[in-house]
């Protein structure tokens, strides 16, 4: 039985008020500290990027160049892009850090991502059928997803997803499984939907795999390989961070019915039950875009992420008071737990979802069943 059912409506209301109070305290305190922080991180990212690309063009510093460019891409995507595009810095009124204008150094376009991530994932967190991040259409991550033979490959597919994460995320809106597996989408529809995505992907591919190598002249292969490595490093890390945030064993997935008439308090509790943290050094938090505080992020997606560490003790205190779980552990513990789930889900579950229809029309209908 979920904790959901043990709380009274009064409890939910009180929890909602507690979390609202935390949010308001941070909002009231926003100021130059936050502005300086994000601008500082951006400065560091630009230095790493320029330095990395330069070093990669010289054989003796090639490896260091890969390291710097990987770090730059990780910062760009996690602590900068992800958080800015959540609107965490919109209050600054600066187009350079505004969710309306920012675009990140990855194959996925800002527009598309704000749709699947900010809206679908954050509104319907872990609601099977509504939150496409549950398995990305590729994996089975929840008991509530009916088992199919293709899920026998859950683990190797998860590895592939990690390696090519930027491209999977870029085409996430295509819901490719509807074309490949369920045949509910035609090739023509797919091509039409792919066009806007390709616009951004093309530019990213050209930059990393044609233009910068060309600048290096005879050393082009070095830069090409270096860029592949930097992109892959970022992909694996970003994917691992995200998986740790939602798929360790204790994290709950939900049925679509939970979002009907959800109060603010219920919404907070669902975010809490659907997320998990991991612990680590300050550097680890920054490099994960503070998604190491996935719980705080899901409760307050538009508060500047560097504040999550500060408010975590207050969030924990609320959890303790109401007997709510606060899922956290070391990075490796959460990773191991996540992979246990991936492996477990590759086989049919004992508990079958009730009344799965025979021929579901779309991914959403099928997953929601």
């Amino acid at each position, binding site marked *: 039985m979920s904790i959901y059912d043990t709380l009274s409506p009064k409890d939910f209301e009180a929890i909602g008020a507690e979390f*609202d109070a935390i*949010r*308001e305290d941070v*909002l009231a305190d*926003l*100021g*130059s*500290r*936050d*502005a*300086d922080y994000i601008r500082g991180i*951006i*400065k560091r990212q*630009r*230095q790493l990027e*320029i330095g990395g690309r330069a070093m990669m063009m010289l054989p003796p510093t090639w490896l260091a160049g890969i390291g710097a460019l990987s770090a730059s891409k990780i910062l760009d995507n996690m602590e900068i892009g992800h958080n800015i*595009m*959540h*609107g965490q810095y*919109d*209050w*600054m*009124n*600066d187009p*350079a850090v*505004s*969710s*309306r204008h920012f*675009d*990140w*150094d990855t194959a996925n376009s*800002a527009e598309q991502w*704000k*749709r699947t991530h*900010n*809206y*679908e994932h*954050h*509104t319907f967190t872990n609601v099977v059928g509504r939150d496409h991040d549950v398995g990305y259409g590729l994996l089975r991550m929840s008991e509530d997803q009916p088992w199919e033979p293709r899920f026998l490959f859950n683990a190797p597919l998860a590895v592939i997803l990690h390696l090519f994460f930027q491209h999977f995320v870029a085409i996430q809106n295509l819901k490719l499984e509807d074309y490949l597996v369920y045949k509910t989408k035609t090739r023509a529809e797919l091509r039409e939907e792919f066009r806007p995505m390709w616009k*951004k992907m093309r*530019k*990213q591919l*050209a*930059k990393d795999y044609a*233009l*910068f190598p060309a*600048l290096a002249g005879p050393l082009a292969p070095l830069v090409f390989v270096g860029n592949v490595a930097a992109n892959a490093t970022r992909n694996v890390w970003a994917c691992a961070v995200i998986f740790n945030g939602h798929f360790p064993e204790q994290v709950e997935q939900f049925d679509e019915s939970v979002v009907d008439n959800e109060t603010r308090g219920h*919404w907070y509790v669902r975010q809490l039950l659907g997320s998990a943290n991991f612990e680590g050094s300050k550097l680890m938090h920054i490099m994960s875009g503070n998604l190491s505080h996935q719980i705080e992020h899901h409760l307050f*997606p*538009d508060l500047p992420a560097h504040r999550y560490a500060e408010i975590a003790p207050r969030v924990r205190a609320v959890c303790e008071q109401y007997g709510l779980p606060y899922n956290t552990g070391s990075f490796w513990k959460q990773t191991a737990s996540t992979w246990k789930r991936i492996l477990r889900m590759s086989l049919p579950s004992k508990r079958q979802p009730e009344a799965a229809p025979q021929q579901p029309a779309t991914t959403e209908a099928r997953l929601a069943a």
Partner: protein
Amino acid sequence: MPAFATPQNAQRRLQPILRSKLIARLTTPHGVDRYLEQIDPLWSAFETRARVTEVTRQTADTVTLRLQPNANWQGFVPGQYLQLSVDIDGRRYTRCFSPANSCHAKDGHIELTARINPEGTLTRHLRDHAHAGMIVGLSQAAGDFALPAQRPERILLISGGSGITPVMSMLRSLCDEGHRGPITFLHYARSKEDQLYTEELEQLAARHANVTLLRSYEQGAGELYGRFSREQLESAAPDYADATTFLCGPPPMMAAVEAVWAADGLNAQLHRERFVVAASAPATAETTGGELRFVRSERLAVSDGATLLEQAEAAGLRPDYGCRMGICHACSCRKTTGRVRDIRDGRLSGDGEEDIQLCVSQPVGSVTLEL
């Protein structure tokens, strides 16, 4: 190469490279400016920014800034305004000001004078913290209140209070050009101590025989007495009907002047700049009854108190949205004027330009949105 002597010129030479397609491709998706600004905040391929080089305080409630803009500044026509952006405690505030300097200034500097609004965050900040070396953002100059390229022969300039800045620019530019036609400068201020550019005006009038300076103070003596009136005008500038007139000042004064010109059927010869935009709504005002202006779609509605997203939809617009509960920011939209209240916590926004979330914002008074 002497042209390289100033950083502005060096930048100008590099501009074609910085703006090239190749650089855009290499710096995608952030764009070249996001890299250049890390080296020097004034460096930019596309954006206009400026360094404050001098701060003076002519009167008790004004502050005058001299600005050195970067190479992207395209100059202005006397009378036009620009938008000045300043970061204050992490937030960017933007307000309009008219350059007061001559458009022929050799050093390319811009001079702005701001009257301090006791409730205005930006002007109070300038009063307390403006200093040489400070970096500010600028827009390009805009506005039709401007000297025509073909300068009119007979010119009448009327200003009140800090409304002097655009007409000061006109006067300075005309003097630099050696304009021959008669120019009458009519200015209204509270007292001599409150008047801007006193000394310079007197010098200009002394040096240029065609410039007549007439001032009226509420307290103390000037060349004129009392408020603007038809009688006063007829004695001060009896040929006003032949002049092209430029007017800028506080609303009551402007209304008095406009009435005379309208009565005489001379509207076509009167150019005016409204300095005080519609007063911002007080914090306690109701959320209904205000005017909602959707500028892009050119639609107008009267607020019924619902969220801006709902009201925009009711007006037939289709703004982007996602969660409709304030978490996804899909509905972010630029507000250009007015205040809104966040329905989640009752927080009241500022009244300047900023991005707001339509789904959790209620208008307080009139609001203009870029929608």
